[in-house]
């Protein structure tokens, strides 16, 4: 069974259709790259999967399932714990590094200080950040550099022990070294998680994604193995986008 099954999904913001009849799947333990020009519906896809579109009063039709369960039957709390989302700009919450990591776990269950301590250490290690911050957990998270903040955001999501991690252009504001660190983190974690990586950087998709989906104007144009998309795409639009002819 696929991890996520997306069936005929449409997403409407006030008078604007962001997703048009999207049907696709996400397999367990894969990194799925999602590429496409601006306003092609990439971010909307992520917001549909964790139902974040609801805070914008958008409307969705069609069905999305997680492990075969309709996401609209799951509690929001549970869905968003199982499906983490990492944004383009790293946003640290006001407060210490420790508090940032602990925010998610504390929402979901009553948790003892020791368990939380362990969880924070584990998450920071998995997020490739531990060595840089182990002596300053009680410092304000805002003192970290941009790349560190993004890894903090990843660790913050990992701390909730999710099953799927969605990333919305996670490296768009980062330098090549930080980008490499985040890509390495993803490849490290692939065994345990399923990734959906939205990226404007087609080369990044080529580097890390197992399969890649190409979106254009709210429609899924094609989805296939990454090598295939980058060497013999079925649609000429995909080919043009990858070659940088538009977008």
């Amino acid at each position, binding site marked *: 069974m696929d991890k996520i099954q997306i069936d005929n999904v449409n997403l409407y913001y006030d008078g604007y259709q962001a997703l048009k009849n999207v049907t696709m799947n996400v397999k367990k333990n894969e990194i799925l790259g999602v590429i496409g020009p601006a306003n092609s519906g990439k971010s909307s896809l992520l917001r549909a999967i964790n139902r974040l579109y609801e*805070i914008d009063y958008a409307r969705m039709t069609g069905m999305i399932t997680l492990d075969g369960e309709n996401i609209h039957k799951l509690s929001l*709390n549970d869905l*968003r714990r199982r499906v983490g989302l990492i944004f383009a700009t790293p*946003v640290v919450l*006001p407060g210490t590094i420790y508090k940032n990591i602990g*925010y998610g776990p504390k*929402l979901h269950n009553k948790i003892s200080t020791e368990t939380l301590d362990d969880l924070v250490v584990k998450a920071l290690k998995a997020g490739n950040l531990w060595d840089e911050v182990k002596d300053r957990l009680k410092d304000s998270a805002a003192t970290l550099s941009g790349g560190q903040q993004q890894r903090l955001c990843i660790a913050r999501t990992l701390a909730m022990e999710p099953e799927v991690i969605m990333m919305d252009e996670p490296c768009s504001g980062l330098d090549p070294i930080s980008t490499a660190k985040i890509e390495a983190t993803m490849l490290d974690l692939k065994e345990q998680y399923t990734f959906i990586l939205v990226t404007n950087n087609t080369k990044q998709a080529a580097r890390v994604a197992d399969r890649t989906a190409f979106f254009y104007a709210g429609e899924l144009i094609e989805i296939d193995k990454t090598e295939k998309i980058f060497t013999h795409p079925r649609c000429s639009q995909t080919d043009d986008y990858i070659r940088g002819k538009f977008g």
Partner: protein
Amino acid sequence: MPLKIGPRTSQIIAYTILLMMTVITVVILFFIILYVFKNGFGQLSIEFLTEKTHDMGKAGGIFPSILGTLFVTVVAIIIATPLGVGSAVYLVEYTRGGLVRRVISFGADCLAGVPSIIFGLFGFIFFVITLRLGWSVLSGGLTLAVMIIPTIIRTTEEAIKAVPRSYREISYSLGGGKLDTILKVVLPTALPGILTGVILGIGRAVGETAAVIFTAGSSLGMPTSLFSSTRTLAVHFYILAREGISMPNAYGTATVLIIIILGVNFVAYRLMHRFIARYY
């Protein structure tokens, strides 16, 4: 031929004008405060601060008025802060920015500009007479609360609106509900702004005369309960000066009032900075 001014000259002129404006404002403010202090500082003594008032204020201290001011202000803040902050949270987080919110915000703006004597009159008719609370600390506090709620709503609203949208998205995407997001992310981030509103409210309440003279009364007795009539410092000052009872004591009272307001602001800003240092 039109007069030509070079960009350098116009910069210098603009700078000078702006500087002059600032200087004039600051000088006027300092002049007022120094003038009051100069006339009032001599009156200050332990007895003046701690003794009961005698002879309608010609003699004795102002202790009952200090207590009265404190009580009335505390009642007002305790009532107004939760109501004001609560309404602002509702307006920003639970309405979709439509007509309701605009109408309420506009109403709050109008109320904030209503002369305080109108609130005094309302408080007298509603709290003192209709609810039979009489001239009392409670009536005065309630009236002041009504008066400062609009200020607290508006400042809190702005502070909450200024919390970046991304903070909310992060909280929701980590599985936080609306209430978690408001309590753990939005309010702590907006707290400095909210406190500013509360401080403004305290300032207005402490210095208010017209709204309390009708509602808290002007009794010089020691306020012992919520239902005691009391005379706040501002009212005491007003009566001393207006009825020519004792100008030196009037200035003494004014000095105490100003010091209290400065003290409140100082403490509040210290708290705020400590808070900011801890959370940012």
